[in-house]
């Protein structure tokens, strides 16, 4: 079916999902080309409606409700792209876009991609290619947006802790208990569980919080540099020592020194650390003078130090010096509701950083995130969200924004039951959103399906920002 869009409000309906065919808005190109496109689109179970000129296009776009926009970029592609560049930022909701062009080039494809065009298809069109693209775009459009919960993080200097889970409450309690003392603390936990953040929290809530917090990652620094990094060196102490260097122990004096991944340190250096903690003094490499230092040491590791002691790879005396208090951090999978809070927090954080405003996450994207096994815990989640925000085109994070390999395997994969489960509120919000989509926004009909009073539903819609 091909139809010209009339300037009449009644023609323009909200996006249709479920059994109603998806609606595509066609822009540019000549009618004969559109007849061909419309035939292909129809074969994909959608309809294509064409605007006659720029004015009707603008009006149609302003009304919204299109599942996707199909634009033809012909010989004046540059001018047409400029037009879209001007128009798209002014729209309240950016439509999903597909472009077809008789003269594809890398520069055109790149420019279109930067505009947010999902696919650039060359003319003459291949039916299968168009169908695959439409399926992909319409699948994304069919995802139901779920509102993001409001997050109130706890600020630790420039860093923030986001958690409401029971597993983390125990950690908070220990932090509160240990922070006022000067006891050495050993933080254990898998990679990405937030060991440095906990160390910073201990420092921030302790008596030394006006002084420096100095962090050293023992695994990242080359072995030959670690000693000079920790204890400093005098100019000319070795090749490359072009200036006198103050070590991290000295820099942390009066404050806290955080030794991350302490299990990666050589035995020689372990003994030097032990001496520095016991004697409260250090000696710069190439210097003969003992320099007094007053530091609180917090160490962290993702390794089993007791096992390492048994294998002779870690000094037992150093272990007991460090593990005066031990804090064990839970995996992300054990933090329940924290998962969605962290997702929301990172979406806001990276949204700000990359100048985007993401207000919701689609049900499918949420399922994919929950079904993933988070080996890298919070760090991995943060990384995935940062990349997703970079590629996200609208104000809803969708499954297409997540790593491609996840999408490839998702159709066959059951959502892992070991992943964090949805809260009752999330499930309710998602279900209401799905029913509203089904009723095309008709609250009365939705209330009937849900078996609640219309006013109750209206209140919930407001509460969940649906």
């Amino acid at each position, binding site marked *: 079916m091909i139809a010209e869009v009339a300037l009449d409000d009644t023609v323009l309906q909200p996006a249709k999902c479920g059994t109603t065919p998806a609606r595509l808005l066609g822009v540019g190109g000549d009618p004969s080309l559109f007849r061909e496109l419309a035939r292909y689109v129809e074969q994909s179970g959608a309809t294509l409606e064409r605007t006659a000129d720029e004015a009707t296009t603008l009006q149609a776009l302003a009304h919204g409700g299109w599942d996707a926009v199909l634009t033809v970029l012909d010989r004046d592609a540059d001018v047409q792209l400029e037009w879209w560049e001007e128009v798209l930022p002014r729209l309240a909701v950016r439509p999903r876009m597909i472009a077809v062009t008789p003269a594809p080039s*890398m520069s055109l494809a790149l420019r279109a991609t930067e505009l947010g065009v999902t696919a650039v298809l060359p003319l003459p069109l291949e039916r299968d290619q168009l169908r695959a693209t439409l399926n992909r775009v319409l699948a994304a459009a069919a995802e139901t947006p779920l509102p993001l919960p409001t997050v109130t993080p706890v600020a630790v200097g420039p860093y923030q802790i986001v958690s409401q889970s029971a597993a983390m409450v125990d950690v908070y309690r220990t932090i509160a208990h240990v922070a006022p003392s000067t006891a050495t603390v050993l933080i254990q936990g898998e*990679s990405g569980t937030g060991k440095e953040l906990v160390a910073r929290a201990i420092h921030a809530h302790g008596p030394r919080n006006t002084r420096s917090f100095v962090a050293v990652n023992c695994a990242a620094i080359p072995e030959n540099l670690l000693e000079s990094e920790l204890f400093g060196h005098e100019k000319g102490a070795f090749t490359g020592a072009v200036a006198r260097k103050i070590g991290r122990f000295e820099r942390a004096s009066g404050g806290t020194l955080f030794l991350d991944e302490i299990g990666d340190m050589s035995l020689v250096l372990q003994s030097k650390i032990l001496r520095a903690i016991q004697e409260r003094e250090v000696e710069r490499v190439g210097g003969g003078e003992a320099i007094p230092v007053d530091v609180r040491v917090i160490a962290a590791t993702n390794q089993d130090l007791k096992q390492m002691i048994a294998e002779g790879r870690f000094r037992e005396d150093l272990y007991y010096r460090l593990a005066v208090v031990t804090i064990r951090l839970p995996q992300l999978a054990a933090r329940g509701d924290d998962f969605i809070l962290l997702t929301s927090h990172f979406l806001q954080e990276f949204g700000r950083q990359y100048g985007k405003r993401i207000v919701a996450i689609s049900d499918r994207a949420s399922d994919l995130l929950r079904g993933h096994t988070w080996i890298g815990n919070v760090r991995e989640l943060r990384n995935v969200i940062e990349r997703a925000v970079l590629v996200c085109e609208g104000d809803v994070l969708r499954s297409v924004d997540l790593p491609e390999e996840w999408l490839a395997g998702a159709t066959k994969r059951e959502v892992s039951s070991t992943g964090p489960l949805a809260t009752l509120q999330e499930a309710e919000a998602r279900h209401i959103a799905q029913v509203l989509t089904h009723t095309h926004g008709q609250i009365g009909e939705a209330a009937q399906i849900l078996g609640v009073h219309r006013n109750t539903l209206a209140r919930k819609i407001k509460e969940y920002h649906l």
Partner: protein
Amino acid sequence: MNATISETTTLRVEQALRLLPDVEDLRPLRGLVVSLCAGRKRQAWTAAEPNRTIGKRTFDPSAVRARMGKALDGVQTRVAFLYEAAVDALESEQTGDLSRAVRALMRAGAYEEEGVRYVQAHAWYKQALGLAEQLRDRQPEMEALCNLGRLETARGYLDAGARAFQRSLALAEAEADNAHAAGACKGLGDVLFAQAQWSGAEAWFSRGLEYAEFNRPLTGSLSLGLGQIAHRRGDYRAAAQRLERALDTFEALGDSAGVVRTLLARGVMEAAQGRLTEVLATYREALSRLPVTDRDPVLELSVRLRLAELYLDLGRFPDAEDETRHAEDVAITYQQTRWLARIYLIMGKLRGRQGDEAGFVFFEQAIDLCRLGEPARRLEADVYCEYARFRAIMGDRDEARAYLERARELLEPFGDDAARERIDEDLQRLTQ
């Protein structure tokens, strides 16, 4: 008790490089260790992972043993080639064919130059030049001088490079040898371009173009040079025309390396004009035009690093990191240690932009790599300059100053006044 290394455990590259003495005979073995180290684990999420360098990668010594035969074959091939050239030179001397002897010596030099053994290459070229100066036929001397000039320029000894090219040009003009004259003019243009002396470079490239009338590859290179200069002078229209001409020439010759170099130059110009969409497309096109059958890692690395730097300028840090890490894998596979140093320089710069103090490990690793094998002092100076900027961002002004002074010291023998002036400006800013 120290951990014993069993046959099944791995070693870190930094352990190996510390253990093995840096002697000429072991260089291929050290290279083998680098190329055999394990790739980065995609699923590694430790806090240290983003700042891991080659030194922290692991390798299995038994794999080195297994590949030792192949490494020794490489050594034998090289020595055999050099001996062959040497004996050829001796026999030519015996028969009185000194031109042939010069060519044999230069063949050996070119072989070493290709293997980035510049000190060795220099020795062969010098020897060739000494012999060529005794000949009545001046062509071998012109060739030797051009080779020497190119090598000195590549090593960063710009004054020495210019002197060799000037001598070559004088001889070529006296002999009315247009081909050599064009080559010498291009060399002189390259030297002045490296010194940011645009007018001088333009004059040499233009003069070269006059001589290179029938030498299409050289015409392409000279047009490329002129395009780059027009860009530096802000004449974008002329630059685009020159680059287009260079591109056409390289396309017609089927010279994909030339095409890629021209696309890179175009990308740099588009970036300078703020045409970011175009520049990304241009660099991606350059990547797609890299020779497929005979992979050229150096060319590929130069494109990837340009792309990484562009992402860095655009603030697209995850993309910059991905591209740089990709380049790291290429450099490791092909034992391109100097490129690895450049890669870590960019990683350090990236960490500086991210305000991550731990990024200093990349600069330290880069400096180590510059000293690995044949010292790359010019590159080391560049690393120190960027390291100084990193330290300045982190608030360590004293260290920043010390690194700039070290860079200045390293630059001393190279005659690169523009680079020294930049350092002086940075030093002045630090003292304000």
